[in-house]
């Protein structure tokens, strides 16, 4: 998540002070990625060091305002124009856990899969409820497109994870280790789920957006 570019995007709409930036950032994303004020000031400090923002005076209450510079504006345009890189998939704890579970003796892999599926399903139910509320708000003329999009991203991602878990369950159930001398050996146990972990959710995410 790029707090840096998020703050630049907010400052592009006019000078703001730290606490205000935090509130607006959280409002756009429904507080999905909560920020603390410390993070905001650290990031502002780095943006200032890099010449992307500059202090823009103080108000009567002592709030220090920041404004985006020309260079900052260019950086922001560049951010919007460049796709978010997918070439180095972020480390996924669940994929690592399953890759380990299928290789470590004595682990009940089915239970690991089902435990995760229940947990993710509950999250998906909760997001869906929030989405239902967001859609009702929209019908009442209180639309919040930014929040709805963030929420739907969580929904699609969680759904992809559950589909992947369903797939893992079938894959594991069908898996028969190949005899050593087999002419066409099946893939060894460990890399199989790990490889699909790296590829599948990413491919789905890409196809959905």
């Amino acid at each position, binding site marked *: 998540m790029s707090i840096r570019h998020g703050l630049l995007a907010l400052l592009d709409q006019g000078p703001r002070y730290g606490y205000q930036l935090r509130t607006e950032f*959280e409002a756009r994303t*429904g*507080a*999905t*990625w*909560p920020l603390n004020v410390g993070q905001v000031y650290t990031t502002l400090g780095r943006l200032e060091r890099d010449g992307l923002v500059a202090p823009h005076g103080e108000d009567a209450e002592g709030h220090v305002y920041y404004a985006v510079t020309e260079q900052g504006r260019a950086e922001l345009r560049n951010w919007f124009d460049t796709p978010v890189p997918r070439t180095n998939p972020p480390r996924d704890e669940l994929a690592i856990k399953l890759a380990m579970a299928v290789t470590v003796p004595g682990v009940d892999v089915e239970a690991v899969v*089902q435990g995760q*599926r*229940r*947990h993710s*399903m*509950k*999250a*998906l*139910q*909760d*997001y*869906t*409820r*929030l989405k*239902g*509320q967001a*859609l009702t708000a929209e019908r009442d003329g209180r639309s919040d497109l930014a929040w709805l999009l963030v929420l739907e991203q*969580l*929904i*699609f991602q*969680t*759904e992809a994870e*559950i*589909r992947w878990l*369903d797939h893992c*369950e*079938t894959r594991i159930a069908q898996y028969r280790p190949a005899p050593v001398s087999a002419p066409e050996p099946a893939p060894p146990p460990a890399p199989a789920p790990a490889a699909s972990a790296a590829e599948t959710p990413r491919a789905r995410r890409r196809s959905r957006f």
Partner: protein
Amino acid sequence: MTTQQVRSGTDAVLHLENITRVHGHGAAEVHALRGVDLKVHPGELVAVMGPSGSGKSTLLTLAGGLDSPTTGRVLVEGQSLGDLSRKQQAQIRRRAIGYVFQDYNLIPALTAAENIALPRELDGVSTRAARREAYAALTELGIEELADRFPDDMSGGQQQRVAIARALIGERRLVLADEPTGALDSTTGEAVLSVLRARCDAGAAAMLVTHEARHAAWADRVVFIRDGRVVDESVSRDAASLLVSAATNSTGPVAE
């Protein structure tokens, strides 16, 4: 367990009481359900998820009185379907239960509005009143323009929505749906589920069979079924507590 705690004090609209269903005999015996106990309460939307062949569709046909369990009882509003005459069973199916079939089951010689009104007319409601209710159901699903069309002139998705309107007409207290969003694109499917959700919020009970997690997520409770048994379930937090967490959000809905 959690649901029992949350919903204690309310009588179940549907109770599948320790049911089994065996197809065939001897060596060819297939155990579709191996002892399932499941309750659906007023206001509750329950989704049943499982791979093909897990028994989820069998569960729904038993709940709708379209098939009988090998052992165990199916209770609809406290009445055991097995204890009723065929005539009484048919009456419960018409009045209390709305059923959405995977393949729609619309009557080709009737228009959409006539298809929807049919169960009400069979129940003795006047044609005019039944027609009025049919139009209300069509409006609820946003498909008024299909009222006078015949099933053959409709797309699969349109037929699906007519079938759903037919299941919702009148004061149905139990709605059973087998993959009701199968033929629909994602926004239309979502619209249908939000209609179902609204019905449950207004007090109906519903059971939805699906393999799509995104659709099951509209449910209060998701029941996972494997090989004829309920293996697990996931219960959503109530909306009130979600609102609090969304409003005060220091941890955020994602943090856990």
